[in-house]
């Protein structure tokens, strides 16, 4: 856009400069001819003027050639104007003169509707045959040229200028287009590589980048690696913390159980509370570090299959049938451990409460969301119970083992990922949990 504008402005300026140059050249020629004509003028005894043979230019001899001269007496003289042969029987009338450089410049009409540029000068000659030596006869010497020549030259120049600028413009735009395409190619590759990381297809920026972008790619790779290291380190610390907290808690519980009494009861109860809190915050801490990490992608099918296999063995004595329905290729935009934590808790809950059947289904519900539904054929929950369940530490039945935090943890992790958990009644008559999570389709 700016290139085209620059070329147009440049074209106008060049054309203007050329016109000015051609006009001044034309004017110089006119002035030169006028000076030559005045120099060749010889006054006669009666005040007439005659041009000596020195001023003979073929341009002024050819009729209507576009080059004319005229010597017109001024004042009361009865002499007729002398004209060049090229004027034939025309005379040139001079009006609206502008004085510049000691001569008068003007425009006028010539024969055959020619548009003339005229330069003239007033010259006085003495009249030798009068008694008074101071009597003078004035003449206006003028030379005129057809300014169409100037216009033709300018038009020719403008035509050449136009097509050469058009060619230049096309070349420049093509060059800029190629430069932008080629120049931005590495950036486009960078964008594609980043998209691959965001979609979980790659763990770092792959490919060779030019010198200007290589440091950026290297820094990004460093950042991604650092991020992954921080998450891994945080997970290790959390895991170690879990180990170092839970083993002493086990010792306290076992010791207290071995010595029944009010103190032991209180210790066991408090340890239970501590365990619930530790489980909750450790699960949150594990999830929080990974939520915004680049490049996380977890296929849903293997996770559900692994969990179903494990839960089938944990609840082997209850003979629970776990029906799975999940399309291959459905991917969660997040860490595998977090998906396992959420779906594992939901499926474990369902297995604990189910009479004989648990159904798990997963599907993509939009371009960016997937839904995992876990239902059972157990007793289900009333509307009032549904409104309370999932709150931290809320347990509806102490007879089934669990921390009472399963659903709260699921809800917390889902929210960290921008997803949601909704609870309701299953078509099999029992409890149903619907988990909506960000997806990579």
């Amino acid at each position, binding site marked *: 856009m700016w290139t085209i504008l620059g070329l147009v402005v440049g074209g106008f300026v060049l054309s203007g400069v050329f016109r000015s140059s051609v006009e001044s050249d034309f004017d110089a020629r006119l002035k030169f001819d006028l000076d030559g004509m005045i120099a060749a003028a010889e006054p006669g005894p009666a005040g007439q003027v005659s041009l000596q043979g020195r001023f003979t230019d073929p341009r002024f001899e050819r009729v209507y050639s576009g080059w004319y001269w005229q010597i017109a007496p001024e004042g009361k003289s009865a002499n007729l104007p002398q004209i060049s042969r090229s004027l034939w029987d025309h005379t040139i009338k001079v009006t609206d003169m502008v004085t510049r450089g000691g001569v008068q410049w003007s425009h006028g009409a010539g024969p055959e509707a020619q548009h003339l540029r005229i330069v003239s000068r007033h010259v006085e000659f003495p009249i030798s045959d009068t008694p008074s030596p101071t009597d003078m006869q004035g003449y206006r010497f003028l030379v005129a040229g057809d300014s169409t020549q100037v216009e033709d030259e300018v038009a020719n120049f403008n035509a050449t200028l136009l097509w050469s600028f058009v060619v230049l413009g096309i070349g420049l735009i093509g060059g800029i287009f190629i430069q932008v395409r080629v120049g931005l190619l590495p950036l486009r590759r960078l964008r594609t590589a980043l998209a691959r990381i965001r979609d979980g297809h790659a763990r770092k920026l792959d490919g060779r980048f030019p010198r200007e972008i290589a440091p950026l790619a290297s820094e990004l790779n460093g950042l991604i690696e650092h991020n992954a290291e921080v998450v891994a380190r945080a997970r290790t610390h959390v*895991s170690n913390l*879990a*180990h*170092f*907290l*839970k*083993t002493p*808690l*086990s*010792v*306290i*519980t*076992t*010791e207290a*159980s*071995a010595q029944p009494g009010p103190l032991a009861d209180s210790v*066991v109860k408090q*340890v239970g509370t501590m*365990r619930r809190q530790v*489980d909750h915050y450790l699960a949150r801490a*594990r999830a929080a570090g990974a939520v915004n990490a680049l490049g996380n992608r977890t296929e849903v099918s293997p996770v559900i299959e*692994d*969990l179903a*296999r*494990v839960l089938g*063995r*944990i609840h*082997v*004595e209850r003979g629970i049938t776990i029906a799975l329905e999940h399309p291959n290729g459905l991917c969660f935009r997040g860490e*595998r*451990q977090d998906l*396992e*934590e959420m779906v*594992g808790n939901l499926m474990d809950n369902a297995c604990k409460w189910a009479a004989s059947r648990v159904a798990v289904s997963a599907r993509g519900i939009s371009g960016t969301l997937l839904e995992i539904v876990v239902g059972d054929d157990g007793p289900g929950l009333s509307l009032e119970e549904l409104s309370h369940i999932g709150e931290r530490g809320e347990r509806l039945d102490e007879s089934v*083992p669990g921390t009472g935090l399963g659903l709260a943890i699921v809800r917390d992790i889902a929210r960290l990922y921008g997803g949601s958990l909704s609870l309701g009644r299953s078509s099999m008559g029992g409890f149903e949990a619907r988990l909506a999570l960000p997806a990579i389709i």
Partner: protein
Amino acid sequence: MRILLVEDDSDLQRLLKKALSDAGYVVDTASDGEEGHFLGDTEPYDVVILDLGLPKMDGVRVLEKWRQENRTMPVLILTARDRWSDKVAGFDAGADDYLAKPFHTEELLARVRALLRRAAGLATSEIDVGPLKIDTRASRVIVDGNPVKLTSLEYRLLSYLAHHKGKVVSRTELVEHLYDQDFDRDSNTIEVFVGRLRKKLGINVIQTVRGLGYCLDDPNAQNEDRAKA
């Protein structure tokens, strides 16, 4: 019943050993993965309780090696690692059950009983052998509706035979499963205990299979089998 407890925390190991011993099990202990693997590989255990975070060799690796070596005893994983990925890894390595720390001792004992029962192919915690009823949950023995008081070793002997109901159990096998590894193993003492047990029960449920060992079975069923023959 003989249990191997692999736990690196000495306090927890001591307390669990006591709780399991009090429940009538013979308990061997190991404090690291290598020792645990060696014991599980060389001694016959009815159940193994295995921690995952062990020094020298990780619990999952220990379990994998046992399964590769065709050691099929039931294994209960006991660990502070309670993520589902850990559970999946544990079960895939060959675990039979999984208990997360911290836990109630009663829950651990219930899980151990369930594993023993499943390994014996029994559906409930009560084992009926004709007029004899053994409640493994309460460690009680009832004959014709009357409770019978047994010593710890007598109960362990009867319980082991009951978990292998109808099968011949050698005296060596009984010694291996009723005493820990440090015991001076003299299989003649088994004969003494079997004699005492028969006297206390007052019914003929423990048969001596000459040259092979003992078999616990319903006397009426045995008679019916003989009649058919």
